[in-house]
């Protein structure tokens, strides 16, 4: 009787343990099932490289949105990556432990600010500033990039801090003993050792930026055109899905799922690279602390 219960529990737990991977497969299955037949019907070339998105006329080209997502994501990384990595270096190497123990959780706490709130601040504070000082409609690639750049900061700082913290202290001591200044030790030794973890943090942040939806809808302006300057209003892949999902039916809805397929694949690639980078760190330099 007792033996039986143990066996049953173990089987049950094994089943439960596959819930995450099962969910992942289910998600992939349903997004692809709705989207892939559409892509094949329209033709991947027309879908990905045509600039004409007018669902009423049966035209579904997402090229402008791909470019928009690309610009905004790269812009966000230009802002978020240096700031975030700088923050991580500073907190790890140049302030006492006690300060870092307060500041790091504070920054992670701020990761909890809802994306709609980031978006709203972008609309009421940032967009008017851009409109009056730089021109254009305000709601633009630049506004989107700045808002997303700030939103990914906690991700970059948190993971980079862990990576830099995992560099053995003997590395620093060795460099300092050779007469290096603190900064020389950091940029010549510590950063090189923590490089893959830092890269992983940036790529994960990129994944977040590509996938972010609500904030981007609010600040990027959503115009359906290929941007020519950072001050142009654009619509990203995610914004396109979220804005039109409410009313879409038939082909139109399938087209939105097909947009989801593109997004899904991009995110999977980014996350795989990041995971591989992290694994190399753990595998390569095993001695944590």
């Amino acid at each position, binding site marked *: 009787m007792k033996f039986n219960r143990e066996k049953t529990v173990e089987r049950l737990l094994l089943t439960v343990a596959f819930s995450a991977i099962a969910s992942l497969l289910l998600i992939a299955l349903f997004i692809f099932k709705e989207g892939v037949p559409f892509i094949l019907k329209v033709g991947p070339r027309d879908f990905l490289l045509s600039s004409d998105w007018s669902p009423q006329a049966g035209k579904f080209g997402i090229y402008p949105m791909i470019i928009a997502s690309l610009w905004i994501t790269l812009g966000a990384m230009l802002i978020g990556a240096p700031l975030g990595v700088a923050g991580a270096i500073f907190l790890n190497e*140049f302030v006492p432990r006690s300060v870092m123990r307060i500041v790091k959780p504070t920054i992670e706490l701020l990761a909890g600010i809802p*994306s709609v*709130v980031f978006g709203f601040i972008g609309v009421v504070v940032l967009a008017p500033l851009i409109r009056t000082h730089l021109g254009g409609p305000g709601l633009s690639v630049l506004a989107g990039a700045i808002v997303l750049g700030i939103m990914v900061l906690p991700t970059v700082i948190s993971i980079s801090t862990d990576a830099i913290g995992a560099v053995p202290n003997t590395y620093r001591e060795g460099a300092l003993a050779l007469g*290096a200044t603190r900064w020389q030790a950091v940029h010549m030794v510590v950063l090189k050792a923590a490089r893959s973890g830092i890269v992983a943090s940036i790529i994960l942040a990129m994944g977040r930026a590509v996938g972010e939806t609500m904030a981007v809808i609010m600040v990027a302006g959503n115009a359906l055109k290929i941007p020519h300057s950072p001050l142009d209003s654009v619509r990203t892949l995610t914004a396109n899905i979220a804005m039109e999902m409410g009313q879409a039916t038939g082909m139109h809805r399938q087209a939105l799922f097909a947009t*989801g397929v593109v997004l899904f694949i991009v995110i999977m690639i980014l996350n795989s690279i990041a995971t591989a980078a992290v694994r190399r760190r753990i595998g390569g330099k095993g001695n944590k602390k």
Partner: protein
Amino acid sequence: MRIPPKYTQMIAVAVLAGATLATLAVLLFIIGYVLNKGLPVVSFQFLFSNPEDMGRAGGIFPTLVGSVLLPLLAIAIAMPLGVGTAVYLTEYTRETRATKVIRFGTDCLAGIPSIIFGLFGFIFFVVMLQFGWSLLSGGLTLAIMILPTIIRTSEEAIRAVPHSYREVSFSLGATRWETVMKVVLPNALPGIVTGVMLGIGRCISETAAVIFTAGLALRLPRSVFDSTRTMAVHFYTLAREGISNENAYGTAAVLIIAVLLTNLAAYWLMHRFIARRTK
């Protein structure tokens, strides 16, 4: 000309300090700005009365209820699955191909953007299983979304329980399952609750995954098959459609306070947990 190392050090520290302060300043500014504009709107009346005229006037009570019920439902679904997975990974198996697959799945799931969860929840729960826009559809979708968080924090918490505890339990003749239930889980509880709180925080602030699964209904749900609107979705609607900036700020203030308090509770628990462990 080469700058002496003493000066590069000073310049570097100044730049790094500036970047860190800028980060903190921006994030604190956002919170301060919203609270400053929103708190004057918030009152007992605002929290506990029904919205009128699509939210132009009145309070936010139904959305407050939605923001409580939906995360609770999501946790009720995700917690058994997440903790079960963590128990299996730590207590019942060694590192095998299967655990690698499980871990890979968890990592991938964690990286999926919320709009994809929204699409999936809509086509699977709302349309195919015919749950409609409802608490149930929203809760199930959010449960999948927070599953990785729960698995990871639970696994860490369970691994932190010292091996000697288990050995003592086994030596007293307890089975594996008895050891899990009576020794391992009670000791890992604060850590597990940390994950649960973080999950609740994510649910409260989520918009994209909720709007397509739980819907927009502005009334109190009577069953899990009723549509509900959360504060985050309500705030988005108010701000986006320009319905009422004043009420939008008020909602945002309540939303931010709710999320920060939940996350704060999570960190407080985690610290207590770590403090007890290292004693």
